């Protein structure tokens, strides 16, 4: 029977690693002596946390791209919106410790002469409200956007490009000081989260652990969706959209469900990212960021979930390393990595590993072929 298991071999390994990290990284950072070989230094904790937040974003993207065939070039927008929601909460937590010492208004508002807190900032002094917004706003945007686009049957590159236009428009909007989100400088100089100073190693460790747990949960949720029958319908949509309609599935609703869910996961990723990197600003909306996220997924292996997360970590760790070790040549290294990945391991890292290990992928979900070819230049029919 081809009922797919919720957790397959790779998934089990993945979950084990992520959950182990959730425990070991904080433990090693907080309790091992600094000169121990296994000690994880302070600076590494938020860095690893950032990778995991990106991994969660990649996971969200793989859900829509790998399984539903929606190549979103605007997922960074959902991530950034989640980040802004968290940033607004953190901003409010600064209280009167800002440079102008204004209890209510964030510094940039004082400085631009705002007299009172705009309505859309209300409520952000509550952590749970911010968390809710971090999920709800990306979800609502995705729902509204998807409702329009999927109903009108915007597909393929057309959809990709308008998602890109969406994030680009948001970027320009958030750049504007008038928007009330701190303009180009964005939100930064955070002090504490739910009462714990962000500078404490314990807080950082806790944030890391939370991110790891969120990644594990995100994986389970995504996996549950794709192994359900809905997952099969969605893959059917990816491979033969109109055929799916002819057997009675309302394709737009399926896409909408997955797209919205994915956006909410991306929002969570953004909300976890911000306290760990300490700044959120409009460049997170930059189309290039969204494209990069797509690339993480491709590097890791599209349509595998585990691969997406892995790709995000690999590329970002590579970036961290290259920018320090080869500051003026690292683009060659990174660019070369992308080209090499495509040519040498077309199925991504996970695909390559499974191929090498000769793991039979019978129980695996259908592999993903290319699907976003412009319709006028059809991909070659599968041989």
């Amino acid at each position: 029977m081809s009922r797919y298991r919720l957790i397959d071999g790779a998934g089990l390994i993945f979950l084990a690693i992520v959950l182990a990290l959730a425990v070991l990284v904080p433990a090693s950072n907080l309790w091992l002596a600094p000169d121990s070989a296994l000690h994880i230094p302070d600076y590494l904790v938020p860095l690893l946390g950032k990778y995991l937040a990106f991994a969660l974003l990649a996971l969200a993207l793989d859900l829509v791209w790998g399984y539903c065939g929606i190549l979103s070039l605007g997922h960074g927008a959902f991530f950034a919106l989640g980040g802004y929601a968290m940033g607004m909460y953190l901003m409010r937590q600064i209280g009167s410790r800002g440079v102008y010492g204004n209890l209510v208004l964030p510094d940039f508002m004082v400085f631009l002469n705002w007299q009172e807190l705009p309505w859309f900032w209300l409520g952000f002094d509550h952590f749970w409200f911010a968390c809710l917004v971090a999920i709800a706003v990306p979800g609502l945007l995705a729902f509204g956007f998807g409702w329009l686009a999927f109903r009108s049957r915007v597909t393929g590159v057309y959809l990709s490009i308008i998602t890109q236009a969406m994030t680009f428009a948001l970027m320009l909007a958030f750049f504007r000081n008038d928007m009330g989100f701190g303009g180009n400088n964005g939100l930064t100089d955070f002090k504490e989260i739910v009462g714990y100073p962000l500078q404490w190693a314990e807080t950082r460790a806790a944030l890391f652990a939370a991110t790891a747990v969120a990644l594990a949960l995100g994986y389970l949720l995504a996996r549950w969706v794709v192994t359900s029958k809905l997952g099969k319908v969605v893959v059917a949509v990816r491979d033969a959209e109109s055929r799916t309609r002819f057997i009675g599935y309302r394709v737009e609703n399926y896409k909408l469900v997955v797209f919205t869910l994915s956006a909410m996961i991306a929002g969570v990723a953004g909300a976890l990212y911000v306290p760990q990197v300490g700044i959120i600003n409009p460049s997170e909306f930059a189309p290039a960021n969204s494209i990069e996220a797509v690339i993480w997924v491709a590097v890791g292996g599209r349509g595998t979930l585990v691969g997406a997360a892995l790709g995000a970590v690999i590329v970002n760790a590579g970036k961290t390393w290259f920018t320090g070790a080869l500051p003026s040549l690292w683009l060659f290294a990174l660019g070369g990595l992308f080209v090499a990945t495509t040519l040498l391991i077309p199925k991504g890292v996970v695909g390559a590993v499974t191929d090498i290990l000769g793991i039979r992928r019978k129980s695996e979900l259908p592999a993903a072929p290319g699907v976003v070819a412009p319709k006028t230049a059809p991909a070659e029919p599968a041989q």
Partner: protein
Amino acid sequence: MVAPPMLSGLVRLIAFAAFCAALVAGPACADAIDDALSGFTTDKYDDTDKALQGLVATAAPNGLAVIEALAAGRLLFDPESKTVLYKDASGALKLAKTGEPAPAELAGKPLKTVRVNNRLRRAVDAAGGAFELRSPDAAKRAAAARAVFKTRESTALPAIDHALADEKDAAAKKALEQARAAIILGKADAPEAERAAAAATVASVADPDALAALRTLPADTPVSVKAAAEKGVAAIERWATVANVIQNLVYGMSLGSVLLLAAIGLAITFGVMGVINMAHGEMVMIGAYATFLTQSLIGAYLPALNSASLVIAIPVAFLVAGAVGALIERTVIRFLYGRPLETLLATWGVSLILQQAVRSVFGPSNRTVQTPEWLQGSIEILGVSLTWNRIAIILFALAVFFALQLLLRRTSLGLQVRAVTQNRRMAGSMGIRTPRVDAMTFGLGSGVAGIAGVALSQIDNVSPNLGQNYIIDSFLVVVFGGVGNLWGTLVGALSIGVANKLLEPFAGAVLGKIILLIAIILFIQKKPRGLFALKGRAVEA
């Protein structure tokens, strides 16, 4: 425009100079020249200004040469002996006072340049203008008259009247009359009727200067003159609203043609071939750098061809970018046919590599590409001003578009390209050499992107980031127009350009762009396959 006080003084002196020159230059004048010249040697703007006025006042025979030298930064002085000298256009060192070659002992000394600032530059222009009203060249006389029209300095009236009396050339005469009218209009002691008539003449010029002249009449101006001026203003403004719309349309076309140029190569590599070509922008950049190199090489080795360097750069950029494109196709893209999404990943990598390569070779900062003489400046038609380079880009973009359209529709290569991209394997079985066609097509798209780089080097930064600025817009244009349809790209580019420029005056550049993006998103809901969507079974299959 109310001229600063020292300027009006200067022009008054010019009038006097004309008078002084008419007399036989006496010793009084000669002393005055020495006096005047000494002002150039203090390295203070105020003194330089006075010196300039003095020079004009004395109508020194060599005055024009000195003023020209001052304007060009060739007026020098010896800080020790306070002698003023200048280099003529050929570089020969001459004495300012007499125009005789400078004594050898001065030539070896550390001479200082007489510095000018904007105020002096204006004064120099005006002084030069006074001399030029008498130039043998009719075009120069007209230009000088137009300069007076701008300043409306009443003291220039005698000179204008004088020039008008002898003027034969129709254009120059008209310009002189307009200049005269501009002065009369503001002249409190001129007859009322004449001033009112002058208002009409000024209004007929219908440009910003005319508007300024009509608007800035003093409070004590007679009612009839004011009324005439107001009528003129109203007429100009009425036209201005129309002109504004036309202007914005033209600007929109111009922006659109830039978008078209940037996008059209992508319309081939992406639209026709289906490669999600993130390195497209870098092909544009390579074209721009090819232009820079061509210009530098020509400047260094074939200066005679300098003014044609941009034209020569077109085939060079095409070949260089095309070759790079073909190379990328042969080494990377060809392994990815049938896997279009992976082209996104690979070309993104290629784009990073190319950016860094250019940064490593040419450095991170901007490179200068000169605008040839014949592309500089603008023409003003009835209040609508068009710059030459924009006109050139519009025409160039259209030319590239139609050439490409012809190539794809009318040649066998075009047919083969389309066949290959629609079904590579079957095209092979029809005897089409698919690898060659693939390389040529990708090379063609890249080459066209390179050509766009030539044009963009004229209006934007030539830097390693050049391409990044166009990639999003290019994809937007191609998709908005309808993938795979060149006409769609044309219409898409122009309509986005025009819409942008019509929005900008109301919403500002930032909000305008946001509105435009949202409008495009909504538009795609109406036309999910772009403006020029292909219809029918062929597409849905």
